[in-house]
C-alpha cells in the first residue's frame, strides 16, 4: 500500500488522481516562473494560503493538482478548484508530524516543515473520499 505523506480537506470528490512532482510556490515570481517554464502540468502545486489570487494564472493555464497548508473548500481557492475540477487538498498536514494548522496560532515553522518534507517529492493525489484528501507517495 502506498505511503500517505499528508492529509487534509478534500475540496470535492473526484476519480481524477493526478500525479507529479510537488513544486512549492512561495511568491508570485515563483508562479510566473513556473508558467513561463512550460512545465506547469508536470507539477502538483504546494502553496501556503487558501486564497485564489496567488495561484490565478496557474489555475487558468491548467494546473493538474493543488495542495494548500491552510483554507477549506469554502475558501476562494477551494471554490475555484471545484470549478476548474482541479483536485485539491487543503490545510494539508504531514502524517509523520503532530503539527496542525490553527488560524492565527500557527508559526512559520509549521509551514516550513511541510514545504521541506514535500517539495520535490513525486506524489499522487487521492480525492475519492468525501471529506479527506490524501497526498500519496508515487516515487
Amino acid at each position, binding site marked *: 500500500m502506498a505511503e500517505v505523506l499528508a492529509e487534509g480537506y478534500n475540496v470535492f*470528490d473526484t476519480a481524477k488522481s493526478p500525479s507529479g512532482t510537488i513544486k512549492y510556490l512561495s511568491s508570485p515570481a515563483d508562479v510566473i516562473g513556473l508558467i513561463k517554464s512550460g512545465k506547469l502540468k508536470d507539477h502538483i502545486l504546494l502553496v501556503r494560503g*487558501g486564497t485564489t489570487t496567488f495561484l490565478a494564472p496557474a489555475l487558468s493555464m491548467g494546473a493538474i493538482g493543488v495542495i494548500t*497548508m491552510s483554507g477549506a473548500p469554502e475558501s476562494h481557492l477551494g471554490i475555484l478548484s471545484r470549478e476548474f475540477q482541479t483536485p485539491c487538498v487543503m490545510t494539508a498536514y504531514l502524517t509523520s508530524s503532530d503539527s496542525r494548522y490553527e488560524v*492565527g496560532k500557527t508559526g512559520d515553522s509549521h509551514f516550513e516543515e511541510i514545504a521541506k518534507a514535500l517539495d520535490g517529492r513525486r506524489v499522487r493525489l487521492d480525492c475519492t473520499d468525501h471529506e479527506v484528501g490524501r497526498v500519496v507517495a508515487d516515487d
Partner: protein
Amino acid sequence: MTTTEGKRATYKQRYEQGDDGLRFQELTYTGNFVGMEPVTDGIKGDRMMRERAKSGVLEKVSKEDVLRDQFTIDELNDLNNYLAWNIWDVLVMRATEGVSGMIPRQEYEILAFMHEFYRWPEILRMATDEVGGGQGVLDIGATARREIGTKVNAVHDWCIGAVGFGMGRCGLLALEVIGPDDYVEESNEILKFMQRILWGKRQDGYILNSQDNYRCRIHEADFLEQITAQLEPLEADSPKHGAFTQFNAAAELLSFLDHYDCRLGLGDTGPYELPNGQLLILRDLFVNEEVFHWSDVCDDEGLPHCYTLALTIDPEKMALAEIRVNDISTTFTRPKNYIEAITGGAVFVREKWNTPMGEVYPVAIDDLGPHLERVQNATLKLYAKTARMNRRDLIWNGQYVYYVDMILPHLRLAGAYEKACTDYQLWEVDQRVANYYYDITKRGFAQETVPQKIFSGAGYLPFSDNADRRRSKYRWL
C-alpha cells in the same frame, strides 16, 4: 461520478417543515448567547437564531414594517445577532485560508469595515432622499427581479448590513474607539437601507437566503423563460461540456482577481426548479468593473462588464442531498461536486453595468473560444500588474473594492453615485481610518484579533436596553 451510484436525490427533504438540514461543518456558534445551546450552521441554525429573537424582525415582515423609519432597539439587536451568526455560517471555514501571498486581504478588509461604518450612513441617507424615500429603495431592490448582470445581488445587498454595520461596528468596538451604545442612529440608517433593498428584491417577506432554506429565487417567471430558452444541452465529458465549465471557471477566477480576491465579483441566484426536474442556477461573473483603475487590462482585452451563465444541474445524477445558495451569492452542494452533473448551459453578455436588458446577448457555447482567450489574457496581465504593486497600494485598492463596490450598484441605480463622489468625497479616505492603517498591524489586530471577534461572534456587542435611537457619538474621551 462513481461515488453516488445507486443513490437518489434527497434535497427536497430540506424544504420540509422541521427538517434540520445537513451539517456542512462541525463547528458551532455562540455569539451573544453564552451559556445556551451552541448554534449550528445551516437550516437548523437559522431556526435556532430566529427562536431566540425578541422581536418579529427575523420573520416575514410587511411592506409597512420595511417602510417604517427606524428599527426598535430589540429589532436592532436581533438583526445584529442574526447577521453575526450568518457571517459565521458563510465565512468561518473560508476564514481559515490564511495569508494570500499576493494581496493583504485581512488588512484591507478591516480598514474597509470601519470606513464603511463611519462613512456610509450619510451617503445611504442621501441616496434614499434622491429616490424619494423608502419606496424608492424598495424599487432599486426590485430591479434585480428582471435583470441579469446586475450587482444588486445577494452579496452586495447583504454586505450593506453584514459588513458595513456588523463587521464595521465589530471592528471599531474591538479597537475600542466606540462603545456599544454609540452610533445607534447611524446603525439604523445602514440596516434600514439593507432591509429595504433585500425586501424589495425578494418580495416574499424575508430578506436573507438563509431564512428561506438558502434559496434566492428572485427572478420573475416570464423573465426566466427567456433565459431558459437559450439553454444548450450538455453531455458529461463532451467537448461542449468541457468548453462551458472551463469558461465558467476561468471567468469566475478573473472576477475574483478583478475584485481583489473577494466574493463581490460573482453572484448566483436560484436554485430554480424547472418543469423537467432540473435545477437552474444563474451566475453573474463581473469580469470588468469600470470604477477600478486596474481593470484597464480587462478593457484592453475588450471584456464586458459581466458574463452571465445559466446552468442546469441534474439532482438525481449527483444524488443531491442539499443545495445552498448562500447570502454571499455562492452555491455549495452535498455532494460537493456539482460540475459533472451540469446538463445544460447558456452564456450571456452585458457590456456595461447599465446596458438595457434588451441589448444583453447570448453567446453560443461553440463560440466561447475567443472569449476564453480574452479572459485568460486579462488574468495573466492583471496578475503581473498586481504582483508589481507595493503593499500600501494593494491594501488601499482592496479597501476601495469593499468600501465603494458594496454600495456602488445601489448608488448607481439611485442616480446618486456622482453626487457621492463630488459632494460626499466617496473616494477620499477618512482621516480616522487613514490613521488606523498604522494600528491594524500592531498586536495582530488585523490577522488575529478582528478575525477572532468577527468569526466567533464574540465581538458583536448588543445595544443596551437604555440605548437611545437618536444617539450618534458625541464624546471622544
